[in-house]
């Protein structure tokens, strides 16, 4: 769309806005009560004529209202409400939007710094350009994060004043360091962005490093506030009997006993770990979506090639971070369970457990989407027939694991289905709903995705290593052994007690991680200086691959919103679990359908806003405004 058309559209909208404003003003003025003209004239003529009964009544009412207002004592509000949407939904959406932008702003510097560092070490300029392209997204996103942060803070102060005051009572010593770190974050971020190419490489890398350090510290402080709301204390074996005791950070009345215990509370570190990894995965996927957006807009081969590569790297970052995420999530869930049986059951066995079926579907889609993108990526490279035959088997493994991962322990069933099954669980499928099956499925999913990466890496390349056959066989043996170990522990898990079964998750994870490390270590020398048998054509991807990237970003965002709600909603009717009760009208757990709708709307708003970020970030690459070109465009518009 030409600039003139946009200006014309804005002009029409502005005209309509003026008309609407004038009409609205007129309506309000017309509906205001005014005394009849004749009456005013009569009153003026009569001088101090006696008031009519109606006037007297109005004056009395006003006097009574004023007297009542003066007599009313000041009472501190506990809650205030928002019409139509309610206080909770307002805070929920604002917090989610703030977190999504914050996650992006924290994640992008991590991999931008790493990519810049690779560029510095290898001396390849394309890495530097790529890191800069990622960093371009930060400036506007940082403003969005700060804006939503301020909006959220105001919303909390206005809508939940008593609770906000309580959090200030606990955490006020942390606020000043937080603000100071925020200043430093702005300093490092803008010097990192605007200083690109202006500083020496080491100095610039140092700025990037400091940006990451400060950003992580900010997140750690904010994490203390939110995790305190879920676990206001720690577990420690105080009496030395081997059984962990609960050590509360606050007294029974809620007074602070130990800021240290409140800060370093039970779920603080699990959330820190989970969020760092999830942020990188999410940030990578959003950056890949940006690349997809630019790829679809690109008009020349050079831009297409660049944004194709950028999308590939963004997706690579997202998937590499995504692979350990289920383990980090499992660790967090296990710690929540260990902290409180009630919270654990609420999450995995009760109200919120149904959301984990949706979570499974989203995670399955993410794995499928990531693999699909890699398979399509083989189309960039000539001569991929050799590896194409493996896709079928990888897809079968992924589909089976996806199905196992999404099988509920207790299915939603009609009465007749329950009668046919003889209970709420299916006699055969219920085995797939248990932890042994789930752990096995997710580990095999990770191994399969890793294999897709490996195949992609090899496409079009031939190893010239003297022991290539032996090393390839060794890789196959390591891979098969890991897969067999995972399946063995999965099946054997049904034969042992629950505690042992849960512990089997550890060798399963280690088998997969070890296999990935060993295979990578073998692969590096195996394909070093490999013969490039076929050319890679960056920018030759079908459009559907770019939509796959956008789909992955959308799934990540939805997943973050959903799981964020689960973590926050677990507290039920508590602002601070077990300490500060929520007595507002919103102190109930909404239906799952309503919650998913709120999450969906938030995701849509976020994507609308991130679209603005993408647009603003892409403006830098556009041609500068030229009066002659604008005049030509005007002429064309008139001609049309």
């Amino acid at each position: 769309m030409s600039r003139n058309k946009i200006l014309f559209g804005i002009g029409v909208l502005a005209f309509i806005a003026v008309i609407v404003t004038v009409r609205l003003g007129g309506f309000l003025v017309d509906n205001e009560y005014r005394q009849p003209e004749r009456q005013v004239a009569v009153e003026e003529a009569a001088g101090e004529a006696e008031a009519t009964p109606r006037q007297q009544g109005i004056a009395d009412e006003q006097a009574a209202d004023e007297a009542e207002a003066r007599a009313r004592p000041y009472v501190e509000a506990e809650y205030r409400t928002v019409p139509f949407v309610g206080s909770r939904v307002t805070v929920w959406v604002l917090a989610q939007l703030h977190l999504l932008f914050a996650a992006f702003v924290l994640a992008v510097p991590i991999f931008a710094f790493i990519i810049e560092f690779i560029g510095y070490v290898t001396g390849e300029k394309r890495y530097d350009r790529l890191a800069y392209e990622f960093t371009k997204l930060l400036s506007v996103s940082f403003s969005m994060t700060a804006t939503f942060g301020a909006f959220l803070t105001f919303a909390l102060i206005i809508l939940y004043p008593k609770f906000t005051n309580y959090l200030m009572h606990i955490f006020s010593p942390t606020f000043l360091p937080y603000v100071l770190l925020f200043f430093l974050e702005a300093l490092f971020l803008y010097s990192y962005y605007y200083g690109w190419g202006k500083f020496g490489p080491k100095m610039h890398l140092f700025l990037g490093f400091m940006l990451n350090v400060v950003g992580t510290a900010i997140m750690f402080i904010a994490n203390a506030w939110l995790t305190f709301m879920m676990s206001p204390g720690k577990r420690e074996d105080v009496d030395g009997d081997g059984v962990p005791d609960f050590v509360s950070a606050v007294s029974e009345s809620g007074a602070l006993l130990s800021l240290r215990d409140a800060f370093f509370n039970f779920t603080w570190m699990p959330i820190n770990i989970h969020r760092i990894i999830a942020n990188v995965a999410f940030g990578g996927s959003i950056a890949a979506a940006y690349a997809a957006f630019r790829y679809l807009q690109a008009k020349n081969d050079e831009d297409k090639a660049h944004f194709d590569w950028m999308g590939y790297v963004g997706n690579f970052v997202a998937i590499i971070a995504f692979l350990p995420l289920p383990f980090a999530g499992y660790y967090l869930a296990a710690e929540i369970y260990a902290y409180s049986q009630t919270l654990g059951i609420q999450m995995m066995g009760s109200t919120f457990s149904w959301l984990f079926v949706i979570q499974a579907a989203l995670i399955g889609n993410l794995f499928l989407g990531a693999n699909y993108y890699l398979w399509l990526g083989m189309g960039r490279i000539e001569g991929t027939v050799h590896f194409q035959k493996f896709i079928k088997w990888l897809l079968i493994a992924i589909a089976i694991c996806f199905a196992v991962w999404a099988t509920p322990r207790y299915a939603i069933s009609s009465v007749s289905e329950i009668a046919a099954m003889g209970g709420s669980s299916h006699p055969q499928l219920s085995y797939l709903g248990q932890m042994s099956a789930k752990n096995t499925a997710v580990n095999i999913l990770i191994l399969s995705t890793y294999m897709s990466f490996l195949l992609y890496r090899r496409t079009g390349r031939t190893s010239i290593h003297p022991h290539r056959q032996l090393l390839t066989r060794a890789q196959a043996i390591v891979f098969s052994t890991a897969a067999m170990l995972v399946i063995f522990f999965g099946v054997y898990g049904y034969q042992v007690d629950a505690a042992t079964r849960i512990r089997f998750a550890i060798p399963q994870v280690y088998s997969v991680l070890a296999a990935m490390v060993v295979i990578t270590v073998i692969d590096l020398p195996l394909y070093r200086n490999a013969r490039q048998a076929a050319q890679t054509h960056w920018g030759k991807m079908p459009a559907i691959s770019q939509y796959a990237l956008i789909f992955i970003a959308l799934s990540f965002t939805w997943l973050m919103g959903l799981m964020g709600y689960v973590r926050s909603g677990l507290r039920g009717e508590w602002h601070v679990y077990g300490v500060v009760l929520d007595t507002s009208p919103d102190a109930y757990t909404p239906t799952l359908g309503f919650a998913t709708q709120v999450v969906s709307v938030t995701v849509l708003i976020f994507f609308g806003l991130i679209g603005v970020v993408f647009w603003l970030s892409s403006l830098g690459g556009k041609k500068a405004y030229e009066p002659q070109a604008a005049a030509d465009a005007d002429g064309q518009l008139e001609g049309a």
Partner: protein
Amino acid sequence: MSAINLPLVLALLAAAGLMVWRRANTFTWLLFTWLSLWAFFKFGLTVPIPQSVVTIYVGIMTLAVVSYASSSRERLSETVQPIVRLIVEPRFRLLLAALLIGLPALAAYNVYADMSAPLEAPGFGREIHPAPPPEITVHDETVNMTTADNPYLHLHEDDPAAWEEHLESGRRVYYENCFWCHGDGMGGDGMFAHGLNPVPSNFNDVGTLPALQSSFVHWRIAKGGPGLPDGGTPWDSAMPAWEKFLTTEEMWDVNLFIYEFNDFEPRALGQH
């Protein structure tokens, strides 16, 4: 009784064998895969899979089939070509006409079948393990659900004779009160079980007792159906509130017994 519908599975395998022999093209294979898996999920097990799970499986399968078909330009072309041929080549006109009538008819039948389903009480998402309150009061004694443990559990190590006594007491309580619904072998299949919906808990299930702290089981025994939380309504549980009939000691005894009988251990405090 076999868990699998053997004739169906054999027929599907035979069809697959036939397709290998006839060297079927990609499109036919994908169509066959989709249809045969749908048939298996729908009719392949002797105990039918609930429709909600079939929908999940069919959704995943559809995604997988579409992903495979479009995972490379060549494969997409192989998949689409038979459809194009069907539309443009005159020799397939009869088949095309049959499909144009047959597919909408199938959709119409599907709607008819959905609408003419027999009337029955609606199913609802029952919470299997409802979340307990932070603390409960049983016989004027406050029990913290997070920290409480079976007070007789330690006797297994400290005083085996006393442990046996409590276990014996638990056995008596169970076979006097609980086995009517939960069954002789604790499989949730007692003589009254067939009349209850939802059916009583199956204590043999590895996903039930071992996943719970003994305080949770104590809560369920003491408070029964009437003590279930509002968050899980509507509740149909027929479990009585046993605190009205048993002493606190008897309730802990039977708690001990059901774990011991099934050779399970309660989830320990702070255990992951």
